[in-house]
Each structure stands twice: as C-alpha cells, then as structure tokens.
C-alpha cells in the first residue's frame, strides 16, 4: 500500500450556517478518518474545529457523521473506503452546531442530571459490599459506554424531532436507568418509592422508544442497548402498565431466535 490523495468533503460553518467544503488530502497506510482531519488542520485549515482525545475509541469525543452514518472518526479506517470515493464528514445532526464538526452536546449532560444517582444500601459499610460476578455483569455491559452520544444522535425519536427532547432521555440515559435498575445493591426503591423501571416510563420517556434498534447498530462499544437494557426495562415497567410495544417486541424476538 502506498500514499494516495483522497477527496474529502467537510462541513464548515457555525450556528449561522455553512456548507460542505472540498479538500484533496494525502492518505497513508493504516490511517483513520481522524488522521485525515488532523492533516487538514495542520496543512490546509488550521482553524478546522474538531473534538478528539484518545484516538483509540475510548473517550467518545470524536463523533461525527461519515457519509451520513454516525461514527467515531478515530475508529473509522480509511481502508473501508475505495480510493476514488469522496468521503463526506459532517457534524452530528441531532445537536446544534457550534463550529465545523463540533456540536453542542449539552442536551446529553442535562439528561444525565435528570437520572437520580445510585442509592447506596443502608447499613452496608464501605468495604462490605458483596456482589457476585454474574450479577454485576449485566450493569457492567452498560458501563462500557464511552458517552460518544452516537446512539442519541441516531435515535429517530429526537433526531428530527426537537419537540421530543424535553420528555425523552434517549437510549444512552434510558440505559443508565437500566444499569441502576440491574445494580445488585441499588436501594432507590427500598423505601417503597417507584422502581427505576417505573420512573423510566414516567419521567424519562421510555414509552417513546419503539425498539427499532438503530441505537444498538451505531454503538461503537457494541452494547446491546435495545435487547439488554431497553426491552428488559420495558418489561419491568409493564408489570404496572400495559405497553403494546413490549408485547410486540418480545414476540418478534422470540420469532427471531
């Protein structure tokens, strides 16, 4: 393999507006899209705005849409594209643009605050927590989340429906509720209050989710958001409320097995 020149189209602009701009840029062996964006910064556009940190798929900073698909730029290898393909990089569509590839993701931080924190069990001192590995594993899967917000960006409930943002926490934060729900020692409902699953339904918009699994498909951590978090949460909430989607969802799942 050798170096070649690729055609990139990158969205440039800010809250006022902007558009796609064409660049011809060198690509070397083994590079990822983020490398190319960095090369543009260093050679052709010193003020091109982009977020990144780890360059190893661990921090969830470099989210963007590449040829229309929500992805991490640092984990998208150039070798998945043909050499004559034009590669279009645009900011996450569901969030307001700040500048170029940087969007205002404060929606997600606001939602994070609305999920009540872990409630430690009364009477169990620090150091006395005992949990079996099988019991922590379910929540551990969700704690792999790197908060890239790709699932939040892709979910159709908010992607083109600004009006739903108030009521809907989005897959990442509904999954956070599921994580706490499945935490072996969480005591949120210990005093007879609502369970986590109930509050997912009542306070965080779980009912909006119609289990399309688009969130699961874009998750770079391959977390089974829909199957392992959202559907079980719906099933637990349904003990109290009838939710036709869960009923349908579990049918579909059974048939698919």
């Amino acid at each position: 393999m050798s170096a070649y020149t690729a055609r990139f189209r990158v969205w440039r602009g800010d809250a006022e507006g902007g558009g796609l701009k064409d660049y011809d840029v060198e690509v070397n062996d083994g590079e990822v899209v983020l490398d190319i964006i960095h090369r543009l910064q260093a050679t052709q556009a010193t003020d091109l705005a982009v977020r990144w940190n780890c360059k190893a798929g661990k921090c969830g900073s470099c989210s963007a849409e590449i040829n229309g698909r929500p992805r991490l730029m640092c984990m998208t290898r150039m070798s998945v594209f043909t050499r004559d393909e034009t590669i279009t990089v645009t900011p996450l569509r569901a969030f307001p643009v700040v500048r170029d590839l940087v969007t205002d993701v404060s929606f997600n931080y606001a939602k994070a605050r609305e999920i009540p924190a872990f409630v430690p069990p009364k009477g169990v001192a620090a150091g006395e927590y005992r949990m079996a590995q099988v019991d922590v594993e379910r929540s551990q899967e969700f704690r792999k989340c790197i908060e890239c917000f790709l699932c939040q960006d892709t979910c159709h409930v908010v992607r083109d429906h600004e009006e739903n943002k108030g009521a809907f926490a989005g897959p990442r934060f509904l999954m956070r509720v599921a994580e706490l729900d499945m935490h072996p020692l969480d005591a949120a409902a210990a005093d007879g209050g609502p369970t986590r699953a109930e509050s997912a339904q009542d306070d965080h918009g779980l009912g909006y989710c119609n289990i399309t699994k688009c969130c699961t498909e874009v998750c770079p951590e391959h977390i089974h958001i829909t199957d392992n978090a959202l559907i079980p949460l719906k099933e637990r909430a349904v003990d109290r409320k009838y939710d036709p989607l869960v009923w349908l969802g579990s049918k579909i799942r059974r048939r698919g097995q």
Partner: protein
Amino acid sequence: MSYVERHAYDVVVVGAGGAGLRAAIEAREQGLRTAVICKSLFGKAHTVMAEGGIAASMGNVNSGDNWQVHFRDTMRGGKFLNHWRMAELHAKEAPDRVWELETWGALFDRTPDGKISQRNFGGHEYPRLAHVGDRTGLELIRTLQQKVVSLQQEDFADSGDYESRLKVFQECTVTRILKSPDGAVAGVFGYVRESGRLFVIDAPAVVLATGGIGKSFKVTSNSWEYTGDGHALALLAGAPLINMEFIQFHPTGMVWPPSVKGILVTESVRGDGGVLRNSEGKRFMFGYVPDVFKEKYAQTEEEADGWYTDPDHHRRPPELLPRDEVARAINSEVKAGRGSPHGGVFLDVSTRMTPEEITRRLPSMHHQFKELADVDITAEAMEVGPTCHYMMGGVAVDPDTAAAAGVPGLFAAGEVAGGMHGSNRLGGNSLSDLLVFGRRAGLYAAQYATGLGDARPVADDEQIDRAAAEALRPFGAAEAAAGGSGTDAGGPSGSAGEAAPAVPVENPYTLHQELQQVMNDLVGIIRRAPEMEQALDRLAVLRERAERAGVEGHRQFNPGWHLAIDLRNMLLVSECVARAALERTESRGGHTRDDHPDMDRTWRKVNLVCELSDAAGGAVDLHRRPTAAIRPDLLDLFERDELLKYLTDEELDA
C-alpha cells in the same frame, strides 16, 4: 475589564481527570463552592485511558497483602527516590478510596466470594489491582462523574440550581494562576474554547490536577490535553518542580500502523500471562533481570509459567519487572536487530490463553487491535514498543496537604504533582494516587480557603490585562505579519501591543511537530549529554519562534489558537526535562543515561528542582535539594542487604 467574564468560587480545580474530580468532590463535601475547569468535555479526561486497575492492598485475593507490602513495592519501583511520606499515605489510604467508589456506584470485577477482584501487575508482590476488565480508568471517571452529578442533584433539591455549589466549566483552558501582590493565589485566568471568551475566576485556593506532559514527545500514549499545563502554570506562579528528568516510557505501545504508534497496550496483557519474544522467538526478558531484582524473578520459563497458577512456590516472570526495566530491554532488543517487522517486539497471548479467555479478560485490547491494526490477538502476536507514558516529576508538594511549596493557596495532585513515584511509577499506582491525593488536595484546599475567612487575596487589573494580551497574542502575530491592523479577532484593540515582527509568523502545528521530534530523538528513553545539550539549544530557538506563533480565523473553537497557547507550556516543561536530565549523571528508573549507565547511591539523596528565574517567563533555573530522610520504622520494613543497594552506608548508619 469589561471584555473579561468574571466569577467567584472558594476552590477552583484545574483538570477533571481522576485527581481533579476527586478533589472537587471533597471540596464540595466540605461545604465550599467549587469550580472544576477542564479542556475537554466532562468525562473525557485522559484517565479513561487507564486500563489495568487501581492498586490497593485490600488483600482480597492474597490475604498476605497489606499497606506495608504495598509501600515496599512502591519504594522499590521508584528506586527509593519516592517521597517516603507520600508512598506511606498512598499505601495506607488506597483501600478506603477504592471501597468508597463502590458506595458511589462503581462495579468492579468480583472474586468468587463477592469481593472486589484484584489482578497481578508489574512490580506488585501480590495481586493488588482492583479492575473492571481492561477499562478501569473509564469506570473510575464515570463513577466520579456520576458522584459529581449526584452532589449537583442534592444542590438542586436544596436551591433549585444544579450548579449552585459545584460547577464544571468544560472546554475551558486556564492560562495563568493569578496572585495577590503578596504572593498568595487569587484565582485563575483562562478562555472558553468554544467561544474564545476570556474569563477570570476569583478564588483563594487552586488545585492543579492537569495530568502530564506526553504531548511534547512524538511517540506517546497521551492525549492532546497532556501539554504540561499544570506544570507550567505552577512554574509561572513561582512554584518549584522536582524530578522532571524522570519520564516513564511504557514498554508496550502499539508500533503499527503509524497513525496509532504509541497508543497503549495495557500491562494486564503481561499480568494475565502474555509474554515478550524477539524475532528469534526467544523470551528475552530472562536476560534483563537487574541485580537488585535477581532474587525476586524467575530464571527459567518453566518457573515463570508456574507462577500464574502457584505464585507461592514460583518466582514471578521477568515480563513483570517494573516498566523502566522492560522498556529498556525492548529498546535493546530492537537496537540489536532482533525486533519485529515494524520496529517493536512481539507480545503474545494467543499461545497462552484460549480465545474465549482473551476476549473476556482483555476485551478492549482485542477490539483495539482488531479495529486499528487488523490483528486478531487471539490468533497472532501483537507488535509493541516503548511509548512516552507518564511524568513522574511535577510540582513539589507537601506530602500530607498537597500544598505546592512557596505559593500559598496552590495545591497539586495526581500526575502533575511530583515525589510520590520517585524515579519510576508502578502500574496501578496512578489511579490510586489520583484518589488518595486528589481527596487530600481537595480537603486541604477547602481548609485553607475556609481559614482565610473574608480576607481573600485579590489580583490587580494589570495582571489580568497582561494575561489577556498573552492569550490573544497569536492573533496579533498573524495580524502584524500581514501588515494589517484592526481586525476584530483580538478583542481589546491592539491586543498584542507589540511591535510588528519583521519575520514571518510561525505555524503552531509545525512548531509542535519539531518540538516532539527534538524531545523524542534527543531526550528520549536513552539519553546522552551531547544530545541533551543540542536539545537545549534547539528548545531555545523554538521558544523564541513560538513567540511568533500565529493563527488565522477567529476565536470561536479555533484549535490552531489553542495549540499556540499550549506551546508555551510544552516548551517550558521540555526545558525542565532536558536540564534535569543533563544534570543527573546516573541511570535510575525513568532516566537512563548511556554515558552513565549505573545507578549511583549518592544521587538518591538528591532531588533536582526547577524554578523560573522570574515569573514573567524567564529562564529555567536548576538546583539540587537533599531528599527527606526516610523514617526509621519504614526503613525497618526492608532487609539491610536490600537497602544497601539504594542507600549509602552513612545514611543507613545514621
């Protein structure tokens, strides 16, 4: 100062990694109004990259473990240059700091009896690292982040405002510590990355928790944030740095493809059974066990392999020597022509564990190699080589309070603080360091701020004007070079306020690349006096050129501008590294001199201290300071024979 936003807090924490968040939580729990400032989004700090675990002698897996054993391992790892009191506090308090995380919702991997599981790691005598697969740093950050949120929820319930007592200023950079005329901390100056707006936070106590300096090197495991900001801020505020010559090169970074060169391959790979081989297929580490460690490590492959299942009757494999030893060994193998195709050596787990076990125990390594290098680590060996990973040196602090020497109101914790790890840090001792000293820094910063009452130091306006002009200079440089004036980029008119340079403006990216090359080639893993002298000459030129670093565009989220500002810090810190490394004529831990290959006991008594000759940014001044004598009861934890390898006879007989 109408163009500068102004806030007031009791405690400001700079940095939102493990140390910064732990400090902020503590300060807020002490009842103080606390601000956290971080360059990235909240929850993205470099701590997420930590993979292996948190070292704490809980004794869950081997009940022989206790703080004394942990203390011993830490001192050995640091070749006895550690500040003994920090190593003692760290070993004693780490278990409580880990257990506390569970009460905030952390979910560590478990032992069969339901306790926190602990794994083996280089330099640790017993399985000691609390972990979550190989993503422990992420768990730590997320837990602290969620604890911050839970405190904000409490404040919301009280006041209707989530941020009434604890606010995170994300994507902001601090460029100066502000001080009162009598030298006490008065606040910080910085800018909002998103908008380019300048701000001042008035605060009597500032905790630096900015992490390391790796971005001064070309091959590094560190993220862009690691530009030595806290180190430089401390220097510029008049605080001394110590141990700056000691940089840990992690032995196993990725070497291919080039774009990911340097990215970390966790030590857990070796802790869990991975072995290092050269191009001849030989497990070469057996040939590199230094004398000080001879009794503790296996001599044969058979003995080494037995250790994984029966550690009480076998000595540990030499792949688990402290990191500095392994990094040097790999370097030597490659130099001797026994390297892998892309200039590393082979790290293999595929012949040591079943594919299922590998994907369970090392999921993110499996993912990382598959996605970034097309290598399936369950079927083939990884290629790895040394990468700049961790700065042992940093702000000279009081071991108990984390207060920076010489500047009242300034505190430092985590990687930016010096002393805890001596000349070399053990894996796993970083996350525990963050928690132990992050908490202490937050606690004592809060006590200091409270103790001042209403008598708070105030920074004068002139200082703020200077900080503003400094921050905006890169725009001025571009303007001056273009021969123009009066663009609106610079905020206050004539912001740079300097004569137009007759020379062209410098591209900050180019300067950064040159700096990284200089440090990598001339002050890297193996050092020689003439090369370091050359490095100092080239750094001086770069520092002068960096004054002319200019940028295009406007202030809104402009990465070129951000880099131009960070360059000041990287250059200052690099100069400290080069000066101290040139001065120390011995090899110890993360400092290896080709021209002085041996460790010298008389050098153990010396800390090298860097200070600025004047706070406006003068030359780096280097001097020697004796290390603190180790408390006798702690010395008694070692055999005299072992101590004789590190301490001089006079010290031992004193």
